[in-house]
């Protein structure tokens, strides 16, 4: 079970095989030991928490990354892709969660770009392309106009285009990276029937998903990954959700995060009826002093959008945000900061840090105005403030003027945290606090958040990692397709009821 694939399996029948593949980015090891075996005529599930290394594995198969070591076999032969063109030519097609299409070009052109059929004058044969697309669409049972531009198509339709591309390539291996994350129930069923018919043609399909019901519905085999390593492969018929969750988490959830008990006080942040059409709907919740509230849900559920609206980065149509009983001006981050809010965004490299500036400059960025004397700021004042925060958060860096880009993910996150903590917020909103951070620093970040809450700060934490949600939060809010579908207290929260609420639109009472 915990050992790799049955060794007796003949290599000739294997469509794709990865053995102990390693990939690291500078000091961060994204994939410690990735193994995977895909058979023809099979739909294989790959599951694991965020950060387990699934995406890295996919990118290696797609030719976007090159492995540092390990074996990569396609139909029994060793391959080493250095570009996506090579992986495609070898018959490996990847469908990403967010398809990458050319928005200004037609559906047909998107399917054939780079390999259009041409006549002997070099003229692209539009009729042949169109016929082929119509044939594929007919087979898939979709009613898309092959001549329309792809701009404005739903994610589901864009994925259909990606699948059509894979079919027209005659790909023998089809990798779907969380294809259902942004799909409705009907769209998921359509995708599944397509996937099944592709399987029946003898193709090997890899299906990555966070939704267990889908894995059990669609797949015949499942591989679990955790912390960048292969854990095990089993037949779906021989396993259960509980068993898979245990393998994915692999540790006792309550022990990992040292959550301190804090006295929960008055409500600080109150959000009522927040609505932005098409993005989120009727969002109401409160965060009290000393409380950690987790906002759980699948990628694309609208969690980041909600906190961006709360913090004033984006505007909203209806509803109200209050801090300590006073309304916060909408669409104005400066007003939100003044009211005592702080937002640590998900994408720290782009939104949280001035990546080319020094550590010290980044830490003092949000408090420049306060540090300045008569409108001027001196290096001395800045360094003292930066030094204080850098040592309180134990940022590991040679010097305060080291460029932020050179730090590891965990240390970058600490710098962003220091920046916002320096503003002395009453409520800290933090989006994916430990994404892309190594395990050691992870628990440091958790300890820090716990301490902050113990000191009376209110914390609103978005997290896609279930153990983090269950371990840290006093209360869990679960979002699904732009709505809050469940509010669960710490005592009642389990991975099952949080997952259920994240994948179902019906209200769950607890």
């Amino acid at each position, binding site marked *: 079970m915990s050992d790799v694939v049955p060794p007796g399996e003949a290599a000739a029948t294997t469509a794709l095989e990865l053995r102990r593949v390693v990939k690291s980015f500078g000091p961060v090891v994204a994939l410690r030991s990735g193994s995977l075996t895909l058979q023809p005529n099979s739909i294989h599930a790959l599951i694991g928490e965020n950060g387990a290394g699934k995406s890295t594995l996919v990118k290696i198969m797609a030719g976007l990354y090159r492995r540092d070591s390990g074996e990569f076999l396609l139909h029994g032969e060793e391959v080493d892709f250095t570009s*996506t063109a*090579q992986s495609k030519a070898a018959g490996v097609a990847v469908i990403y969660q967010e398809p990458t*299409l*050319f928005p200004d070009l037609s559906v047909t052109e998107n399917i054939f770009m780079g390999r*259009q059929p*041409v006549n002997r004058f070099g*003229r*692209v044969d539009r009729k042949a392309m169109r016929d082929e697309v119509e044939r594929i669409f007919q087979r898939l049972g979709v009613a898309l106009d092959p001549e329309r531009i792809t701009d*404005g198509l739903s994610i589901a339709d864009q994925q259909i285009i990606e699948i059509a591309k894979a079919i027209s390539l005659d790909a023998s291996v089809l990798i779907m990276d969380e294809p259902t994350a942004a799909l409705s129930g009907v769209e998921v069923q359509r995708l599944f029937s397509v996937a099944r018919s592709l399987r029946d043609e003898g193709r090997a399909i890899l299906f990555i998903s966070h939704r267990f019901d889908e894995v059990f519905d669609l797949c015949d085999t499942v591989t679990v990954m955790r912390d960048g390593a292969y854990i095990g492969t089993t037949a779906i018929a021989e396993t259960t959700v509980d068993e898979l969750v245990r393998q994915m988490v692999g540790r006792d959830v309550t022990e990992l995060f040292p959550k301190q008990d804090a006295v929960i006080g008055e409500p600080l942040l109150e959000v009522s009826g927040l609505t932005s059409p098409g993005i989120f709907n009727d969002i109401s919740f409160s965060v009290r002093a000393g409380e950690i509230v987790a906002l759980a849900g699948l990628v694309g559920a609208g969690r980041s959008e909600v906190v961006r609206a709360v913090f004033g980065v984006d505007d909203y149509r209806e509803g109200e945000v209050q801090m300590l009983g006073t309304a916060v001006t909408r669409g104005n981050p400066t007003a939100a900061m003044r009211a005592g809010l702080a937002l640590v965004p998900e994408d720290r490299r782009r939104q949280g840090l001035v990546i080319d500036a020094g550590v010290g400059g980044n830490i003092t960025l949000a408090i420049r105005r306060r540090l300045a004397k008569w409108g001027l700021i001196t290096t001395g004042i800045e360094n003292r403030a930066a030094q204080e925060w850098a040592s309180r958060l134990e940022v590991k860096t040679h010097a305060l003027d080291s460029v932020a880009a050179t730090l590891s993910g965990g240390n970058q996150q600490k710098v962003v945290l220091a920046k916002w903590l320096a503003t002395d917020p009453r409520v800290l909103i933090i989006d994916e606090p430990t994404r892309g951070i190594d395990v050691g620093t992870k628990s440091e970040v958790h300890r820090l958040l716990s301490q902050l809450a113990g000191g009376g700060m209110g914390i609103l934490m978005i997290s896609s990692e279930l153990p983090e949600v269950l371990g840290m939060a006093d209360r869990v809010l679960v979002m699904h397709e732009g709505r809050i579908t469940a509010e669960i207290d710490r005592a009642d929260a389990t991975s099952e009821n949080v997952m259920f609420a994240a994948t179902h639109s019906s209200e769950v009472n607890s």
Partner: protein
Amino acid sequence: MTTITPAPAFAVRKSFGGVGRARELGILAALVLVVAAATVKNPNFLFSSDGWRDLLLTPSILVLVAVGQAIVIITRNVDLSVGSVMGLTAYLTGRLFIDIPGIPIILVVIAAVLFGGVLGLINGALVAFAKVPAMVITLGTLYAYRGINVLWTGSDRVNPSDMPKDFLALGTQQILTIPVLSIVAVIVLAGAAWYMRNTRGGREYYAIGSDPAAAELYGLRVTRRVLTAFILSGALAGLAGVFYAARYGSISSQAGSGWELDAVGAAVIGGIAITGGVGSVWGAAIGAMLLMTINRALPILGIPDFWQRAVVGVLIIGAIVLDRVLAVRQKRRLIEARDES
């Protein structure tokens, strides 16, 4: 006056499919309106033999430059050096006739086109390999190429008397009342349009401009395509330089300065999205005709010279605002249609 373009262009682009075609028709309608208005005021604008010739001849040079510019902009780049390239090749043309008496005209044309292509290659290599935005690179070569031109020419100038009569005749010669230069421009335009519409290479230019990141994921040879686009733009500016010499006969070190902006303006007015991936070289060519024709029509319509530049500015801003409004509307409609379904 300023309502000329928006009115006809507004009615178009209703469907998502045939986006391009309709936009070009709108610009064409605007062109017809301008010509009609000027002709009503003064019938000679269209119906005298000089009027007819000027109508076709004046935009021919800009059409060439605008076609090259359009190809570059479609790849989400821009070539600001085309005016300087034109100036250099125009002077080269004159220089060749002076220094090599009796040189065949065709050799001079080839030399100018090749020289333009090399200047374009320098732009393209800097953009494609150094990964510096085209705006910055070609702004640099705009000045650098002009500087070389000034060094080379000095206070000297090429005069009509320095060049063979046959060559100068090309500048005004007509076949069946249609100027030779216009015929060449249309042939080049038709070739470019066919290439952009019907070949893999042409379609890849659109793909690269539409989403460069997706182009990488698709495994397209982005570097090579961008390089080629700049070479084409340079070569077409080179050909335009020869035209310029034949048409005007007198070439100073400032020949062609400011043309880069006319070329970008023509492309934008003609429906080429400045962010790449959208538009056609036909549109850019019609945009060039509209720009040049408006310049000639305004005095006839009694509008003072000072206003000409302002009108061009309004046209460009109007075209961009119109595109933006239509794009936002289309997006909203598509999203609403999706939410309802």
